[in-house]
């Protein structure tokens, strides 16, 4: 993934709570074997039915529990491919949040009143390292796990990082701690 330190620009607002990943990227587009090209299918039914209109600004602001439902990472790929670089909401579904961080797509949790202020401001500057959102109402801070921040800032391959801990993994396996459960290849 690409390094990301600052996201600056206009805010697109999707004022809905509990937006599920079936809406973000409907199932008929999950049959592709690639990670790319999903942007044109983002919110496929809502946009084509004229229910919503979204500009591909750097920042998407939305309601609580965004990304609930299916674990499909295609939702993140579609949002990124559409043009968003960061997403701000009062809360995110757990799997969606993790999927964002694996792709260098910055999820930012602000409280409801901060979200409303950001919607009014219409543009912002988000600094990953400082963990701040700077907009007309002032500067607000957000939480970000240190390791996640490090990876996003430097665009690091997380698998490579885990593979560097090979000794610890091998030791765990060698200790018998990994012997739980069946041997799937021997069924």
């Amino acid at each position, binding site marked *: 993934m690409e390094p990301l330190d600052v996201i600056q620009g206009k805010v697109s607002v999707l004022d809905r709570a*509990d937006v599920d990943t079936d809406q973000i990227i409907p199932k008929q587009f999950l*049959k592709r074997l690639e990670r790319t090209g999903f942007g044109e299918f983002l919110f496929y039914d809502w946009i084509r039915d004229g229910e919503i209109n979204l500009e591909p600004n750097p920042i998407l602001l939305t309601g609580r*529990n965004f990304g609930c439902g*299916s674990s499909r990472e295609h939702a993140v790929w579609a949002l990124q491919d559409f043009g968003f670089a960061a997403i701000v909401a009062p809360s995110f579904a757990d799997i969606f949040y*993790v999927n964002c961080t694996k792709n260098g797509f910055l999820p930012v949790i602000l409280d409801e009143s901060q979200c409303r202020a950001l919607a009014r401001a219409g543009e912002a500057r988000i600094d990953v390292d400082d963990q701040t959102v700077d907009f007309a109402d002032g500067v607000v801070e957000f939480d970000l796990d240190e390791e996640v921040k490090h990876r996003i800032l430097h665009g690091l391959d997380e698998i490579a990082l*885990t593979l560097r801990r090979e000794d610890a993994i091998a030791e765990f396996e060698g200790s018998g701690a990994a012997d739980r459960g069946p041997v*799937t290849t021997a069924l």
Partner: protein
Amino acid sequence: MPRTLFDKIWDAHEVAEGLIYIDLHLVHEITSAQAFEGLRLEGRRVRRPDKTVATADHNVPTDGTPAARLIADEMSRKQVEALERNCAEFGVPVYSLGSDRRGIVHVIGPELGLTQPGMTIVCGDSHTSTHGAFGALAFGIGTSEVEHVLATQCLPQRRPKAMRVSYVGERRPGVAPKDLILATIGRLGTHGMIGYAVEYAGEPIRALSMEGRMTICNMTIEGGGRAGMVAPDSTTFAYIEGRSGAPEDFDAAVDRWRSLETDEGAEFDAEVEIDAGAISPMVTWGTQPAQVVEVTDRVPDPAAIDAPADREAAQRALAYMALEPGTPITEIPLDRVFIGSCVNSRIEDLREAAAMVEGRRVAEAIRAMVVPGSEQVRAAAEAEGLDGVFRSAGFEWRTSGCSMCLGMNPDVLAEGERCASTSNRNYEGRQGKGGRTHLVSPRMAAAAAIEGRFTDIRHWD
């Protein structure tokens, strides 16, 4: 210090702080292709194929298509063929079309005895929470994490918070495990369990079969929960014993598993108590699982909802569902009935539904189908004659797969069709664009097929 079931499993799997070891990785065709491709691009291998198993479920037609190359839909065919190729290349066992072990990934894990207490289990599918019914820590992951587990057998994880949902009282006749979890989500909201691993406890849970516990844990994700869990007990052990994946020294395993239950005095970050005796058969009326009422209720009036976000969501949901506030649930006419999906397609579910329809006929206007969760469930049901019961009543009897739970295969709702469904998601378009889904238990769905509308099965004869 007293520890919870979750604590015990987590602590036993920490390779290093924030890095947990995965005992079983379940793989299916929709969320794995890009992960295998990632391995190829980096020249990586699958670290533990012996802790990995794949099946084809989301995409597959339920018409008995015997091999991947014969799937009519070109993209589905390519995806299942890619799964078979990837598994062959990386040495991962796969149960694809033609295998009598194939089925919905969350049905075959338990039925093959792969799912066992105390394990960590992941799958690129949100309903992986199902496996927590065995006292495992099981959760859904995205494709990047699928690739991570394939390559390292580990996952960097932040420790979730712990919630306990304790049921008290006694479940009343006609009230299914599905109703318990729908009522719970209705109370806590679609976002109520975000950030939590949830343990379900209390006598009403202990009294449930493994199928019932799986139904409850399956839908934990619909309340936003990371994982759902039930402490293992004699019901759990009896289910596992004799299955292919069961431990060779079964008694020793049971001794270990008995120590997993939450210690007396262990603390949870959140505690919820629910009176199971106050729960009725439930029916969803909206486009989120939390938008649910009792079958004897009416479609709610959004104007009466205080929170603006919930009120607006209710208004949009009613417009999509073409429902008027105040309409009795039992007066909503149906077009389709679907019995299946990873939440309610196991043998017990099919037995319950069959008992409702035996000797009756599906209503004239209804198209009803039963889709067993796996080929083994199908074989077991056919051995008991359940297929004949359903067919005689006018149901279609299909081969196994995810089917109309998510409409990625030929089983879909047409625009505007209204369906009583035993699945777990009533999102807009989930079962087909413009389709309208009402989530119910298997017995409620079966009775609805006969009546052509919802009926209170407690007073149905």
